[in-house]
C-alpha cells in the first residue's frame, strides 16, 4: 500500500470537486491523476478509487445510493476508451454506420455497459481484493494482468489497454485467461447486423437500456 498517500490526495480531490461535478466536469480528475502513469498504475489507481467509493461509510448509506453510483461512474468512465470499444465490438460493419450512428451507438453502448457492469459492482461488492500480477507493454498497446480474489475463489482478469494522449485506457476485458468481452459482444452484434440495419441495432440498444432503467439495480446475492 505505497499508494496510500496518493489515494488520500485523490480522495480529497474527489471530495473537493464533489457532487457538483457532473459528467463533463469529471475530466480534470482523470487528467491530473493518470497522466504518464504506466498501464498498471492507471488501473490500480482507478480501482482503488472505486473500492474507496464502495467502502465509504457515508456513501454506502442506502440514502446515498445515487451519489455513490455517480461517484463510481465518474471514476470509471475515464478508465475506458468507449470509442475504441464500440468500434471493435461492431467490427467490420463499423464503416457502414453513418457518423451520427457511430456517435449514437457509442453513447448508448457506454450507458449499456455502465448500467450492466458498474451497477453490478455497486450492488454486489463483497470486499473482493485485486492482485496486480504484471503489465505487458508494447506501445501503444498493453495488457494488465490481475486476479480478483473473493473468499476462496480467484478470477483472472486481464485488461487490454491502448495509449492515447499519454493516457492508458481500457478497451477490452478478458476473464478466465482469455474470454474477451468485446469479442462476446461482437459475435452478438454481428448476428444481429446480418439481418438488420445499424439503425435497428441502435433501436435494440435503446430498448435494452429502457428495460434496465425500468428494473432496480440487481440484488441477487
Amino acid at each position, binding site marked *: 500500500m505505497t499508494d496510500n498517500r496518493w489515494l488520500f490526495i485523490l480522495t480529497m480531490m474527489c471530495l473537493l470537486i464533489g457532487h457538483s461535478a457532473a459528467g463533463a466536469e469529471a475530466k480534470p480528475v482523470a487528467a491530473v491523476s493518470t497522466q504518464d502513469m504506466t498501464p498498471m498504475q492507471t488501473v490500480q489507481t482507478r480501482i482503488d478509487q472505486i473500492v474507496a467509493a464502495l467502502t465509504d461509510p457515508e456513501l454506502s448509506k442506502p440514502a446515498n445510493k445515487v451519489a455513490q453510483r455517480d461517484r463510481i461512474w465518474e471514476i470509471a468512465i475515464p478508465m475506458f476508451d468507449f470509442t475504441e470499444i464500440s468500434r471493435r465490438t461492431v*467490427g467490420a460493419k*463499423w464503416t457502414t454506420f453513418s457518423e451520427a450512428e457511430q456517435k449514437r451507438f457509442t453513447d448508448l453502448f457506454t450507458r449499456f455497459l455502465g448500467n450492466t457492469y458498474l451497477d*453490478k459492482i455497486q450492488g454486489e461488492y463483497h470486499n473482493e481484493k485485486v492482485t496486480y500480477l504484471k503489465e505487458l507493454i508494447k506501445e501503444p498497446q498493453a495488457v494488465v494482468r490481475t486476479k480478483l480474489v473473493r473468499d476462496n475463489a480467484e478470477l483472472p482478469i486481464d485488461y487490454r489497454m491502448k495509449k492515447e494522449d499519454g493516457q492508458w485506457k481500457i478497451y477490452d476485458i478478458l476473464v478466465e485467461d482469455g474470454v474477451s468481452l468485446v469479442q462476446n459482444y461482437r459475435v452478438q452484434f454481428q448476428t444481429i447486423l446480418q439481418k438488420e440495419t445499424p439503425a435497428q441495432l441502435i433501436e435494440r440498444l435503446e430498448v435494452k437500456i429502457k428495460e434496465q432503467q425500468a428494473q432496480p439495480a440487481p440484488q441477487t446475492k
Partner: protein
Amino acid sequence: MKPILLAAVLMVAIASWLLAGCAGARPKADFDPEAIDPQMSPAAETSPSQPPAKPSTEDSSALSDEEASLLEDDSGLPEDRSEEIYTVADPLEPFNRAIYVFNDKLYFWVMKPVAVGYRAVVPSPARGGVKNFFYNLTAPVRIVNNILQGKGQAAEAEWARFLYNSTVGVLGFGNPARNNPKLNPKEEDLGLTLADYGIGDGFYLMLPFLGPSTLRDSAGLVGDAFLNPVAYINPWEASLGVGAYNQLNNLSFRIGDYESLKKAAMDPYVSFRNAYIQLRQSKIRQ
C-alpha cells in the same frame, strides 16, 4: 461392490500417503509408476524440453506464448478484413435454441428455487465440504487426462492433491491442498485431451440439463463418465440422483451469475455460445 472399491481406493491412498511422507512435500519418484511420467523428476523441472508450465508471475522479462497472444490484438478493428474470431459451426441452431429455452426455464422454475432453499437450509461450510468431496472424487478424470496429454507434472500434482485431501482432508470433504499452488493444476478433461490430439470441435451442441458443449466435448463427457465413481453407483437412478445433487450443490454457490450474464447480453443464446467456445479455447491453449 461399491464398499470394496471405496475401501481399495482408501487403502491405496493411505499407503501411498505414508510412503510419501507428506503429500504437501514434493512427490517422490516411487509414488506411483502410473501417475508419473518417466521423464519427470524434480531435477528435470527446469530442463528446456519441459512443456511450458508458466505461471506468469515468475519471470517478468520473457513473454510466454500466451502473453504474446494477449498482446497481439488486432481483432475487431474495422480496417482488419480478416476475421480472426474462432467460431464453431452451429448447424443445429434451431434445435439448440429450443434446448436453451428449456434449460433457461429449468433454471428459473426448478433449479434456482431449489438451490435457494437448499442454500438457506444448509450452511456454507457443509456445502463447501460437499463440493470438495465431489471434486476430489473426480480426481481420476483429471489424472488420466493429464497423463494422456503428457502433462506429467500436473498428473503428479493431481495425484498428490487427491491423496492429501483424501487423508488430511478427511475423504476429500476438506481441501487442505487449497493453499499450495503446486497442488492446484489446471483442470483437464477428455474434451481437452481430444483437442490436444488435434480433434476439432465438430459443431456446437446445447445439451439438455448440462448446457453448452460441442460434439467433441460431449464425446469427452461420455468418456470421462467412465472415470467418475458416481457413474458406477447402483441403481442408475441413484447415480443420477447423486450427480444431480452435486450440480445443485455447486449451483448454490453461484446463484445469480446466470442472471447477470443473461442480463448483460443482447442475444443470450449467442453470448453463451461464444463464451463457452472462448473459454474452451483458452483452456486448450494452456
